[in-house]
């Protein structure tokens, strides 16, 4: 279950990078999204919207939750 969430997050990040004309980079669970992918906070916001749509879950419903890495973001959708 956990692995599929990580794969889903990676897939969505690559998708948003492509939409914004960024070259793909290898992604790992520990990849720091803002620092390592070239996405800015707007790109990250789009990643989150797409994840919400895919999972029908909104982990930020009650307020912002801090996350930095792909694993940390993926974990929010496993809860």
């Amino acid at each position, binding site marked *: 279950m956990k692995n599929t969430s990580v794969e889903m997050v990676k897939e969505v990040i690559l998708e948003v990078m492509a939409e914004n004309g960024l070259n793909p980079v290898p992604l790992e669970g520990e990849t720091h999204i803002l620092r390592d992918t070239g996405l800015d906070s707007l790109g990250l*916001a789009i990643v*989150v*919207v797409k994840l919400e749509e895919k999972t029908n879950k909104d982990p930020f419903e009650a307020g912002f939750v801090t996350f930095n890495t792909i694993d940390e973001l993926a974990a929010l959708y496993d809860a």
Partner: protein
Amino acid sequence: MMPEFIIGDEKVSRQALNQLLDRYLPIFERHRNILVHSGQPISQNVSLHLCEKTGNALFLCPAYFKPAQIDEIIAQHHIDLCIYDGDIEHIQYHELEVSHAVQRDPAIYVFTTGTTGMPKLIKHSWETISVSSRAVGKRLQEKMWLMSYATTGYAGLQIFFSATRSNGTIVYVPQGSFPAYCESISKHDVNIISGTPTFWRLLINAWPQGLPKPRLEQATIGGEVVTQDILDVVDQFFQPINLTHIYASTEVGTVIIVSDKKAGFPASYIDPERVIKFRVVEDVLEVSSPSRMKSQVRMGNFEVSDVWISTGDLVQLRDGRYFFCGRRDGRVNIGGSKVLPEEVEGVLLRFEQVKECVVYEKKSPIVGSLLAVDIVLTREKSLSIEKLKKELSVLLPSYKIPQYIRFVKEIVISENGKKIRK
């Protein structure tokens, strides 16, 4: 003799309708405040005809209202007769006790959902609600009219009164799908169609190749911002004898009619000598018109409106004409800048790959608000999000470029043919 109306394939003659009216008249006569809750044309038609005749008050509830909402209206407005679904044989109704403390008050009450908040209840006299039917000329007597809106709303009522007072026939399309509209329009050779820009665009997109087009005498566009693009598209596709665009709302009535096939309206319309008066306050159009509503009833509290009614629609003066730009409360705040969804849609619709689109605000826990768009692509064309963003960057400042872009199969429209932006 032309039928009174056609529902799908079923024709209802004037004679059959009159028999039904005669049968139910005594029931309407012993009541005062009538509520109709039905999506069926026969129940709606009978209620409209008989309430006007008896001088009753009619509360036209949208078919989607829930029983709890209906109960609330019954209690709040001393309803003593409820009309439900029916057919040409029989109409279901429910009689309640008549409160003799209540005076008979001839009026028609229409619910509007507006763009935000609670539904509002707008009161019109039978005169003001049917005012546009007086503008139907001799040439348009005994014609076929398409019911392209919910009959319970202001726009649908304009078609109802215009068609019935000119001895026309109303064509109802119960399925409400665009292929079904195309088929009915062609089959019954509809002469008069009124619709929102979105309605027209979806209709033309759905028109099957080879299906005979109707001989359109009158095409009317309104209810959303009317651009030059949509005027040209409708004109070229249907070649109507008359093409007009109108500005109307439940609150102010039909107040602007433009027939020069150009978007916007001449600045000369703003003239204190005219019966219908306009002014622009902070870019918003305000109207004072004799065909305006009598009052506005918010659920629970009654308020009588001012002479001037703010429409909430933004206008801009350019080269001697005023152009509508969108709804004031529909603007999306992107990083401190206000974006009008209608403006962005206008730019996107010029792409040959874009068949239809709707721009809206998407809340984000990270950046507050995102400008989002759902796009329906034309079947044979493809477009990537990256390419679209790149092309938009030369047409729009960056804050007006949708950040969240989705390609979808279809967009959702309201029962009045307007885009739903959420």
